[in-house]
């Protein structure tokens, strides 16, 4: 089995505001090995979240290759990417994003149940991971009954309960105070060491950067590099292909007067 979990080659992703292109990713190459605890650093707007979304298959790159566990997302239909995520990729979001109507244990067990496993097995798994993240006594608490740090721990447990090859965490400490953030990072590094789960974390929190191994930096949609032979980034017009609009979008633009 290959050691490479993530393979991103020459990836471009643009967003358009009217006719003005914004290249969120401008020729990015990333490779993540199994068991790494990689941190993706960069300022807001540098393209970290977009890169995570593209790697997670939540959206497709405009150009380039994105392979996770050997699966080329550009060649994979949306429903199949969703199924793939369910089996292989755990997500931790900045705003915790737990399901409000489920308690901690149900939130964690939910993805396991979606995978079609037995309910009792999922409950055991959920209990195990919640105990691992230090919430073994708060199983029945609903999200609104937990602090931000506790909610983020539940989110980490949820990501791990599906037994993923990869956990993507988008600024997981951004909404936490520094001490809670440090605790969360310690937890994640411990889980990475204990279970050899691959983590790719986007952050500009120094505590997270300190824990990362390796740390890569994004700026204006490109990885920072000291390589003098590396070609310069493409200008936005060259990086972004003009999107094809369907007749409905064209009609909407005509109605609103926005080209």
């Amino acid at each position: 089995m290959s050691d490479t979990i993530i393979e991103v080659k020459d990836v471009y992703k643009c967003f358009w505001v009217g006719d003005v292109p914004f290249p969120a990713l401008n020729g990015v190459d990333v490779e993540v090995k199994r068991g790494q605890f990689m941190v993706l650093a960069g300022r807001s707007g540098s393209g970290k979240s977009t890169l995570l979304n593209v790697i997670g298959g939540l959206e497709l790159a405009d150009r380039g290759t994105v392979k996770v566990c050997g699966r080329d997302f550009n060649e994979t239909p949306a429903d199949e990417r969703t199924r793939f995520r369910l089996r292989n990729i755990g997500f931790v979001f900045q705003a915790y994003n737990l399901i409000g109507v489920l308690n901690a244990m149900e939130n964690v067990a939910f993805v396991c149940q979606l995978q079609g496993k037995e309910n009792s097995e999922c409950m055991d798994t959920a209990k195990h991971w919640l105990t691992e993240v230090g919430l073994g006594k708060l199983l029945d608490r609903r999200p609104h009954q937990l602090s931000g740090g506790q909610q983020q721990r539940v989110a980490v447990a949820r990501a791990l309960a599906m037994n993923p090859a990869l956990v993507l965490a988008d600024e997981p400490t951004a909404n936490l105070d520094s001490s809670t953030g440090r605790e969360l990072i310690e937890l994640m590094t411990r889980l990475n060491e204990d279970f050899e789960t691959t983590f790719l974390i986007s952050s500009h929190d120094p505590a997270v950067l300190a824990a990362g191994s390796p740390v890569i930096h994004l700026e204006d949609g490109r990885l920072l590099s000291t390589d003098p032979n590396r070609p310069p980034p493409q200008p936005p017009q060259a990086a972004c292909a003009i999107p094809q609009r369907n007749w409905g979008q064209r009609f909407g633009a005509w109605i609103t007067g926005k080209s």
Partner: protein
Amino acid sequence: MALAPLFAMAARNLGRHPRRTGLTVTAIAVGLAALIFLWGFSDGLHSNLVRNLQDTIVGSIDIHPKGFFQRPEITKGIVDPKHIENALEEAGVERWTRRLVGFALAAGPRHTSGMVLMGVEPETEGRVTTLGDKVTIGRFLQADDDYQCVIGAGSARSLGVGIGDTLVLMANDRFGTLATEEFTVVGIATGGELGIDSGMFITTVKALQEMLEIHGQVSNYTLRVPESRLEPVYSALREKLCVERFDVLRWYDMYPMIHEWIILSDGFHLVFLSVVLLIVLGGVLNTVLLSMLERTREFGILMALGVQRSQLALMVAVESLLIGIIGVVVGATLGIALVMVSARVGIDLSALVGETRGFYVDPIIRTRLDLQHLWITMLGMLLVSLLAALYPAWRATRLAPVEAIRHG
């Protein structure tokens, strides 16, 4: 992929806004209960109408010579009644009576009047109709009566006769000769139905056979069967009797207006049901769509976790259906209870229908639960709940995960 956790979540989602869910469920329940009650009232009214019509004089099915209903001639009756009685026995009909029907002139001390002549067999008439109950002065005919008669109160007034007085009846006998006979008035009927009050002369079959020299002949066999057996008995009799010689008519073949009125009334209820369903559709759609829009971000998260778009749509549909099911269960329970209570107690419309009292329908209406109408109403509500989910579910399938997560 397992759907159980999504269904469980759909059920929990109903509790996110209990007041909103409660209001929607209440709207469905009240709407359904009102529909069930209204249709139950209408069905009760129809039952009452049909029962009164049959009870008073018509019966369920009438057998007579071909064309007799259009042109009754008392002397051209059924000459081989045994043939019909065998058919009745084979069809399992137990409640039947024989009649002689035609036209005659009746002369009293004050006036002479054309009348509908009806000969009955008093010993069996009571098994088919409640004609005897309409006699308010004197008595109804008895088996051993000879030349006695019952007339309506209006006729008694215009002819100037009372109990114990005699009337001279004139009618053509089977040779076409005018036959006359004196009859003693033993009963005066009141009721207002079918012209009994004025214009009907009721005596025994035996007396008319003797007077008109048509011994052994009758013109009609009038049957009474439960409404549920009407069609099978009708078909069986048509099969057994020669349709070239006899007409076998159901009550609504003879009085189609009432039957058509009932069909029209049911049609009106279907239109009314559709209007209520449209209103419910709007209410449920509003609730489900609001709920869906509020949770756009959560839908994005679910998709990121691995929930398929089709599963999201299914979850929305299940939420809507659950609202519908709860509403239908509550509404049906309430509606059925209302119909049951009203069926037992009765709804007295005397104050409203005083003027038309006695016109086929009793002023006290007892509601009736028609299972077919109940199912139509309940299924309609459930279908509407499901339809209300179509648009929100479709919107859920159009969500892009990243945009949905950024939402709200």
